[in-house]
């Protein structure tokens, strides 16, 4: 890479710092394993790990505190491409996505590829269609971008209203999974743990906003990579003799098929007309074999699932806002490339993880007696993630007597493989870490949208910088309190919330962003029509099938309601734009300017001119 002319604020030692962080993590795990062999109690292991990890997170978050508007909202536009890629990868998946993908592979086998490829394609679309142009515009939020593109404050307000719901959905899903996994290693009451998790989430971003978020998420991605890939790689060495699980788990397929047949999982006849059946969050039995092509990868089902997730991921506000944090447009594109690289590593390992988990579960648990069970399996059974009951009094566990919960699958691998407790705790805490990373990203983008966009959507004059930051902080506390209250409110299915959220934000933003960047004729009325119809169709469909008890239309499950919302938003935007007058010359110049990579960031220039006037 050619050395950029201006790199004002980038710390050249960041790479070394994060290398230190990773090696410290490894050292901690090795140390704890040693201590465990010496006979230290489980509680003190838990405590050490939790204290060290939360101290690291909080010190990064609080250490990056700032009152500068530019630093708070876009990290001073000085994050280098690879670190921005780290944050993109972790906030696109979050704990919900990661855990749910592993669970879907475990229960439904190859159907999960439809979701996984949607994630991948979403990143490609983001890199080529959106990232460079959003970076040139440089708005702090997506509604801010639309306001600038269409020169309309009412559009900004409208977009915020549509984007609050999906952000709240993901925030709740992430908090829920964070609390669930934290409760496995902390012996407090559920309410206390939820307060603790909420406190960590708030504390880590309240100081420095986007700046804190960047460094926390980099550290947490490293934690997730270590926490998931370390047990997986060790198991791969034990089972296949090579430390690259992503390429070696194929050698287990023959054994896995034999195991599945002997424990009574039969291949059903492929049903192509049925909707993709995603596993629910409750306890359920393994019913389908891994290597079976069923409804998920064929025709209509694949298109529905794939397009919904692709649209949702490529326009997720949390990810698109991150384009503004890079140094220039080249770096913005490159950061998405790094993001897809890291995401690729994770989603390549996900099926390997599920196959290894299924293999050792069928091999070691099915058919064993109760006193042969792995030592730490009580972690899962006590928390309701696994249920073992000898219903036919045979003394052995049959497959029919074992019920798994979807979100517990991610933790099953190190437990059933009988790894040292420290490694198990590391995996559990890395899920918590991913949840904190996802929740902080959503919390920050939600509070930025609510304060900045609602305030400046209603009043024209931007206040002094410090107040702007303080208002965001107050909103952040309010939102987090509300979210913690909602998490305690009732039992929710994290995957469903995530997919609803992707459907909603995809249907609201994907058509509008495509049109507003790539079609000059697209005007304000088209944008409004597109946002309203996309959001309304999706929400109504979810409400109609979930609450009012209606039946599915066109074989689309309500988790993929975006498949109805996206086309209607495209059609409405197109039709209304053509029926109303064309864009003004001023807007046309903005569009022209947006498409050229050189020159000053448009948002910064407008802000500079506005402050000079006062």
């Amino acid at each position, binding site marked *: 890479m050619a050395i950029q002319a201006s790199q004002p604020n980038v710390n050249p030692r960041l790479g070394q710092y994060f290398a230190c962080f990773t090696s410290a993590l490894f050292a901690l795990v090795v140390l704890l394993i040693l201590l465990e062999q010496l006979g230290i109690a489980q509680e003190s292991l838990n405590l050490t790990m939790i204290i060290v990890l939360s101290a690291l997170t909080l010190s990064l978050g609080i250490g990056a505190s700032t009152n500068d508007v530019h630093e708070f909202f876009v990290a001073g536009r000085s994050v280098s491409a690879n670190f921005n890629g780290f944050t993109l990868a972790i906030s696109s998946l979050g704990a919900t996505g990661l855990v749910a993908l592993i669970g879907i592979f475990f229960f439904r086998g190859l159907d999960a590829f439809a979701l996984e490829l949607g994630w991948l394609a979403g990143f490609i679309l983001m890199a080529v269609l959106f990232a460079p142009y959003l970076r040139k515009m440089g708005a702090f939020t997506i509604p801010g971008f639309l306001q600038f593109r269409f020169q309309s404050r009412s559009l900004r307000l409208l977009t915020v209203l549509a984007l609050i719901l999906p952000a709240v959905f993901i925030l709740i899903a992430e908090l829920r999974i964070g609390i669930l996994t934290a409760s496995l290693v902390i012996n407090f009451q559920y309410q206390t743990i939820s307060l603790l998790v909420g406190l960590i989430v708030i504390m880590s971003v309240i100081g420095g906003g986007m700046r804190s978020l960047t460094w926390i998420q980099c550290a947490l991605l490293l934690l997730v990579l270590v926490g998931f890939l370390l047990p997986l790689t060790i198991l791969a060495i034990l089972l296949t003799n090579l430390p690259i699980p992503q390429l070696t788990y194929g050698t287990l397929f023959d054994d896995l098929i034999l195991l599945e047949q002997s424990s009574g999982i039969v291949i059903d006849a492929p049903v192509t007309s049925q909707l993709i059946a995603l596993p629910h969050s409750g306890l359920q039995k393994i019913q389908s074999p891994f290597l079976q092509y069923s409804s998920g990868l064929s025709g209509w089902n694949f298109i529905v699932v794939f397009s919904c997730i692709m649209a949702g991921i490529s326009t997720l506000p949390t990810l698109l806002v991150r384009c503004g944090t890079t140094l220039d447009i080249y770096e913005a*594109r490159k950061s998405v*490339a790094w993001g897809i690289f890291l995401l690729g590593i994770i989603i390549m390992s996900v099926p390997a993880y599920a196959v290894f988990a299924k293999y050792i579960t069928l091999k070691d648990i099915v058919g064993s007696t109760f006193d042969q069970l792995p030592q730490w399996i009580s972690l899962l059974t006590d928390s309701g993630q696994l249920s073992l009951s000898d219903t036919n009094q045979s003394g052995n566990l049959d497959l029919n007597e074992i019920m798994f919960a979807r979100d517990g699958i991610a933790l099953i691998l190190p437990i059933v493989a009988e790894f040292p407790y420290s490694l198990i705790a590391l995996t559990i805490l890395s899920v918590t870490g991913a949840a904190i990373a996802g929740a902080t990203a959503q919390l920050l983008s939600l509070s930025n949208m609510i304060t900045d966009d609602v305030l400046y959507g209603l009043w024209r004059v931007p206040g002094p910088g410090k107040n702007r930051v303080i208002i965001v902080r107050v909103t952040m506390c309010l939102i987090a309190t509300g979210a913690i209250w909602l998490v305690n409110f009732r039992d929710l299915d994290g995957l469903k919330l995530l997919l609803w959220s992707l459907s909603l934000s995809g249907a609201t933003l994907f058509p509008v962003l495509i049109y507003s960047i790539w079609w000059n004729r697209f005007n304000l009325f088209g944008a409004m029509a597109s946002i309203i119809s996309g959001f309304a169709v999706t929400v109504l469909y979810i409400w109609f099938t979930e609450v009012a008890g209606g039946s599915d239309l066109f074989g689309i499950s309500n988790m993929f309601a975006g498949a109805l919302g996206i086309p209607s938003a495209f059609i409405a935007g197109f039709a209304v734009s053509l029926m109303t007058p064309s864009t003004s010359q001023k807007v046309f110049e903005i569009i022209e300017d947006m498409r050229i990579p*050189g020159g000053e960031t448009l948002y910064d220039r407008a802000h500079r001119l506005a402050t000079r006037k006062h």
Partner: protein
Amino acid sequence: MNERSKHGSYWIGTRVLILSVLTTFFVCLVSALIFLSAMDKYELIGFPLGYLILSNGLIILAVGLVFWFVDRQHRLDHKHRMIEDI
């Protein structure tokens, strides 16, 4: 007017590049899905071939494509002198 046409050729180049990235990926994706069961008759390092392409091949292709796109677009920007005074 001269300025406009210079942007025009840059814009056409950008669009061709973007379209080629997207068509490459989607053609590969669709053909991987269509020929999935046909390719599964062959085996490579223990995997059925179709499965391997779906699980690893497409991801590697996507990562390579995006890095290639970043590089080509950067060259295009330089060629049309779009990147001065940042």
